């Protein structure tokens, strides 16, 4: 398979990234090379193979539902550029 410039534009939108025309050219070219390389996986017949998402066979890990101290609000907010009244501040989204 190969990847077109239009597809790169679509994927960039999904990934919330913005590119200049020059960057789009570069990524289209480089991603196309990488995609062509990974296409070698199609040489393998995997019809009867189960996928492995995780190497350690663990399912849900539960703990007792106990009240524990949370991180201080001040600490949680300390890296935010915009904050107000103990909250993160974001641009207005509803007119």
């Amino acid at each position, binding site marked *: *398979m190969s*990847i077109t410039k239009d*597809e*790169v534009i*679509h*994927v*960039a939108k*999904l*990934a*919330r*990234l*913005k*590119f200049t025309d020059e960057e789009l050219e570069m*990524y289209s070219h*480089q*991603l196309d*090379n*990488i*995609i062509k*390389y*990974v*296409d*070698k*996986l*199609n*040489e*393998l017949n*995997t019809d009867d*193979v*189960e*996928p*492995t*998402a*995780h*190497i*350690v066979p*663990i399912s849900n*890990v539960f*703990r007792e539902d106990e009240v524990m101290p949370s*991180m*201080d609000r001040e*600490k*949680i907010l*300390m*890296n*935010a*550029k*915009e904050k107000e009244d103990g909250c*993160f501040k*974001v*641009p207005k*989204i509803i007119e």
Partner: protein
Amino acid sequence: MELHELKIHELHELLKNKEVSAVDVTKAYLERIKEVEPQVDALISITEEYALKKAEEADKMIQDGNINDLTGIPVIIKDNMCTENIRTTCASKMLEDFVPPYNATVVENLSNLGAVMVGKANLDEFAMGSSTENSAFKTTKNPWDLSRVPGGSSGGSAASVAADECAFSLGSDTGGSIRQPASLCGVVGMKPTYGLVSRYGLVAFASSLDQIGPLTKDVTDCAIVLNAIAGHDPKDSTSVDKMRKKDYKEFLKEDIKGIRIGYAKEFFGEGLDDGVRESIESSLKIFESLGAEIKEISLPYLDYALAAYYIVSSAEASSNLARYDGIRYGHVATNYEDLIDMYMVSRSEGFGKEVKRRIMLGTYALSSGYYDAYYNKALKVRTLIKKDYEKAFEDVDVIVGPTSPTTAFKIGERVEDPLAMYLADVYTVPVNIAGLPGLSLPCGLSNDLPVGLQIVGRHFDEGIVLNAAYAFEKACNFNAKPSFKGGAK
């Protein structure tokens, strides 16, 4: 010998016998950092004030008779592990001024034992890369030849150990990021079994592959550091519970008679440097002379591991890095139109080229219409690779081979060709895919550059890997030191 040249276990003897204080040791390393750092550029932060305070605390522990193997020992931490109130950048503009409000579990463990953090190491941005050239801040140089890369992504961690800027460092390894730089810098580096060491506070790259591990000056030190960082952590649900806590120092034995050592014929294919091949072949002879049984094995799916790895790791990265929206932490744009545009501009300004490339590849592989063709296919190939190893480990106890197909390459040589860069990880990636423990240690020189030997074991069988590595280290007696040649005038 100068203090900065000593290994952890040698420094420990001096500290225990009160021949030196932890403050003396720390000052000697801070001095050494000032001397070599302008040439090597291994560090993003030097934590001098913090280190001197920690050293005083360590001296107090020693006075109180409360000394352990790491009390008063200087350490450098890769800058993708959170350190409370100390900037943690991931070598990214995105996190240039990020100050974590908590410690990673491994950092907390080392701190509790009295280890002294003297700095934070450079890396490829978000640990994505094999040369440390993808750092947004600086390019680390290889102490063996300053015109060459130290490997990556834990290039700063490996170079700082090779240059004696610390007694040991911590790195993280998603596809070889501890072992490959250890190989290129002539030090010992280990990626433990997935789940042995807590990932809490390690900035996530690919969560099903990432693992933290030590970079040290010898195998004994590797076992000492592994003792300190291994173990269950309730804050990381993938860290393995109900495992008996082992003392890895117990496996440091010279006797390996009867151990079955496998080498895969697939290791010796195209792309392997002649010098590396020769060193690996002599290493197999050393193992044989020690009484190990050498067996040829086959890992037929090895050739597909790199392709599967780049799909799986990039897919996980694209999800993990979705959190960088400029709101709670990280870089935020100043000029934007609306909320969505704020995300887009913040992310585009904050992330570097390689990180964007991986996010794009991962997003593509997970996108509607391609999920089955790429992501699910790669997960199926992951199963095949895992089974390859399971079959091989029916006949052998460890698998040895090259860590990297080449020695350290020139700075700039591969930056324009991402695929050529990815090939640096061809021998290390399958080990992450299968979640196995792998260790790299120096086994010789090729054109005055170190060659690394990789030893891989079964899940949670770090013991036999350390046993084989220790016996090999004694027999091989690699004692060359970096020359710091080739620097810019």
